[in-house]
């Protein structure tokens, strides 16, 4: 094995942003490759700027490199100019750490967080010189593995991947390393043999080990081809985040990337129960990091990296027990200079003046809240139980502390949504502007509107997604109203996600393995970086569907029935399917469901299936807001006393 750097440095002058390809980050590891070590190439199939900050990839990078039997390096999808240079010069995809050819690694592990990057996965395989199809790979070719949220329905990628890993990666990468290292030592004889061994590891799904039966268009069953292969593959869950204080040495890139700051994960999982949210469903239960460990990671991280911003990350950071105190004391006094704390994921019902004051000490960037739906009725349907007053309280907290801009996230195309719900988004925005005027002359509110894409392992997995036309009509409704809305809407801006892209996300979100041909077709016709609006091309997708005699009507727009076999039924996130179905019925009845962190268990399955529990320091919800209970809000920043039932240990059943 040797470094391709001498060849690469001669061509880097030809590409935009060559710093994407040099590595050299503070925190980079130069591992010692050895014949008996499993060599992982962790690939984020999007640009370096998007992929570098990914915490999941960085966590695994460190954990694997700490093992004596494995090494890990990193790679990112080369931008189109670089891909052109590589093809012209005959150079392969390479790692950024030691600039080794991707084909020299034993495992190519892709982190997939969006369906639109699937063609980039093919591009990376092709640039690596690895056969695209699993059936064409020989024993000397690398194993192709995927992880990340898209791994919960890997079926559309079944032709191209050797395995998918479900859930938290911290533990399972070690088990995979052991198996692969042993396979190497034994001479890498049979590819089938190693796949069979991988399939026996809990959390590892090997698509080629399953027979799929259809009845016409309909899926009938998934059957393991061999004994010892599980009928249902269960996700992996680490019981306690405190045991995994990673990344310990967050990578500090030399060129600007997204989320360019220290990131400290304060908890994993979320039980707010928003029905549209796949992340909240598949990452249960809630596992908080001890406040002391958060503080250590923040302070050590700032000292080591020199960053002046730290993000406390989770699916809903304001829910962290004692968040105000943690934010106030997160940064030790002896850390030099000004530091700002950002909380990227904020629920409006837990955002208070106290938090607002703490996080804006150094620099004030925009604040984003996510009411998700315009009307209370629709928020009950999606179980995002934040009241209008909560939103105004949160926005008021922000405006009172000097912010002038707020961004509000909404989804459109939600189940049962009627135009009245859609238009209510503008009422919320208008009222937020009014709140802002109490503090500033020209407050601004930006509405960011996304088309709803139903996801596997959520109560909305049976819902037929809105058509492109319907999504466009709803966006148009708001746009037109905003244009003709007159003075009361001054300061309100509208941004929206391309409805066509939402449809293609929907295609793969709930697609099956017949869609592999579509991904390959689009890639062969030059469709890469489809998650970038400048490259997204809907005609590539519609042509590919037509050529393969597949339709959006069937895959995207159709409601699924209760008895239908879903393409991910042989995979499990712990959630009972009947729990999800009941939650879907409750949604249609506009019935909300409380957060089980602070109320009795309703047995969704996430804890009971795996014998794990919530790890939450506080027995009561964080201060402020109505906490989705519909109770009165006593102004911002004032703890609301809630009547909470006796705390039942999560997972104990009810």
């Amino acid at each position, binding site marked *: 094995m040797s470094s391709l750097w001498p060849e690469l440095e001669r061509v880097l002058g030809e590409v935009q942003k060559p710093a994407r390809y040099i590595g*050299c980050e503070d925190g980079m590891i130069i591992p010692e490759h050895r014949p008996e070590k499993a060599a992982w190439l962790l690939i984020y199939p999007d640009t370096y700027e998007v992929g570098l900050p990914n915490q999941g990839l960085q966590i695994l990078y460190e954990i694997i490199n700490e093992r004596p039997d494995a090494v890990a390096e990193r790679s990112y999808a080369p931008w189109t100019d670089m891909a052109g240079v590589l093809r012209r010069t005959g150079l392969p995809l390479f790692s950024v750490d030691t600039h080794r050819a991707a084909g020299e690694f034993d495992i190519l592990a892709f982190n997939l967080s969006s369906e639109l990057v699937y063609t980039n996965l093919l591009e990376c395989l092709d640039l690596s010189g690895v056969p695209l199809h699993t059936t064409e790979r020989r024993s000397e070719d690398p194993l192709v593995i995927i992880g990340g949220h898209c791994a919960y329905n890997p079926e559309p990628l079944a032709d191209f991947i050797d395995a998918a890993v479900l859930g938290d990666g911290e533990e399972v990468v070690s088990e995979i390393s052991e198996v692969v290292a042993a396979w190497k030592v034994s001479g890498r004889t049979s590819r089938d043999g190693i796949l069979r061994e991988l399939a026996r590891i809990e959390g590892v799904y090997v698509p080629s080990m399953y027979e799929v039966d259809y009845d016409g268009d309909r899926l009938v069953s998934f059957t393991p081809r061999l004994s010892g292969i599980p009928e249902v593959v269960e996700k992996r869950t680490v019981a306690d985040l405190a045991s995994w204080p990673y990344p310990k040495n967050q990578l500090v890139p030399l060129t600007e990337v997204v989320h360019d700051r220290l990131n400290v994960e304060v908890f994993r999982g979320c039980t707010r129960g928003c029905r549209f949210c796949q992340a909240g469903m598949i990452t249960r239960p809630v596992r908080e990091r001890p406040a002391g460990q958060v503080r250590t990671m923040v302070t050590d991280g700032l000292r080591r990296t020199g960053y002046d911003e730290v993000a406390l990350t989770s699916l809903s950071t304001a829910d962290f027990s004692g968040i105000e105190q943690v934010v106030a004391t997160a940064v030790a006094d002896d850390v030099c200079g000004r530091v700002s704390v950002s909380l990227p994921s904020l629920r409006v019902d837990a955002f208070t003046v106290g938090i607002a004051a703490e996080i804006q000490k150094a620099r004030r960037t925009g604040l984003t809240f996510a009411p998700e739906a315009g009307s209370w009725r629709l928020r009950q349907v999606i179980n995002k139980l934040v009241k209008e007053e909560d939103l105004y309280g949160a926005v008021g907290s922000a405006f009172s502390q000097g912010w002038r801009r707020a961004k509000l996230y909404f989804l459109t195309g939600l189940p049962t949504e009627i135009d009245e719900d859609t238009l209510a988004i503008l009422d919320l925005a208008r009222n937020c502007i009014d709140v802002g005027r109490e503090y500033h002359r020209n407050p601004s509110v930006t509405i960011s509107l996304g088309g709803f894409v139903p996801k596997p392992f959520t109560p909305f997995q049976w819902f037929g997604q809105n058509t492109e036309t319907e999504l466009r009509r709803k966006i148009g409704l708001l746009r037109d109203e905003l244009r003709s809305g007159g003075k009361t809407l001054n300061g309100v801006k509208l941004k929206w996600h391309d409805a066509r892209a939402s449809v293609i996300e929907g295609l793969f979100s709930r697609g099956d393995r017949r869609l592999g041909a579509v991904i390959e077709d689009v890639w062969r016709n030059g469709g890469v970086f489809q998650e970038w609006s400048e490259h997204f091309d809907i005609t590539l997708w519609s042509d590919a569907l037509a050529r393969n005699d597949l339709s959006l009507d069937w895959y995207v727009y159709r409601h699924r029935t209760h008895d239908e076999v879903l393409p991910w039924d042989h995979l499990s996130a712990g959630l009972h399917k009947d729990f999800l179905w009941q939650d879907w019925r409750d949604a249609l009845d506009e019935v909300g469901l409380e957060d089980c962190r602070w109320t009795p268990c309703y047995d969704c399955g996430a804890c009971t299936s795996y014998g794990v529990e919530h790890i939450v320091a506080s027995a009561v919800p964080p201060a402020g807001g109505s906490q989705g209970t519909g109770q009165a809000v006593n102004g911002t920043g004032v703890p609301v006393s809630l009547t909470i039932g006796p705390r039942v240990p999560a997972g104990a059943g009810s």
Partner: protein
Amino acid sequence: MRLRVRFAKTGKVRFVGHRDVARIWERSLRKASLSVAYSEGFSPRPKLSFGLALSTGYESNAEYLEIELLEPADDSTWSPVDAEAMRVRIDAVLPAGFDVLAVAPADRRADSLQQAVTSCTWEILVDPAGVDEVATGVADLLERNEIVVERERKGKVVTEDIRHQVLALDVTGEAGDGVRLSADLGTQPRALRPDEMLAAMDPPLLARSVCRMNQWMSQGDDRIEPLSVDAAPAPLAEVRA
């Protein structure tokens, strides 16, 4: 006090752009816990001023920046020992590939480095070609009375005579499979890049690597460096960060 720093940028990090280098400095100075002065206002930034920009892809043994420090307030007690300690302290926090070569107090009232510097010395390695052929090209270039190049400026193509910017150009030897040149190029009113000069040669040459060796300020009939180093590291070493 104001601190002037001379640093090198070599190896893989030569592909890091000028703006990113500024960000790297901001972070590194925080790591060093220096009491850097910040600007006022909505988005306070550390008070750093950089000299001439270096094209992405070029190496350098002569990059400069000035840092405004709150402490010490002035340089009345500053000694060479302090300078060396400061050099080591800053060098330790910079990423591999960036090396601090010298540190000294700077005069706040003096011209900015961008205004004061009038020329740079470059060491250039050009792709395989005979030494003689390159030497002929060099002689030809130096004999010309004008060298008119076209370039884009604010979206428009403008022509410009760069002859007076080529102050010196020599073939200094062969290295590996390339030929080594040394060039002194003017920086006022704008800095001429080695690539532009090479492209104007007949036949045009392509640089494989370029390293800025010195920046020069005029002092009477002489030229001096903003900060000199006794022993600059060897340029274009084969193996670096």
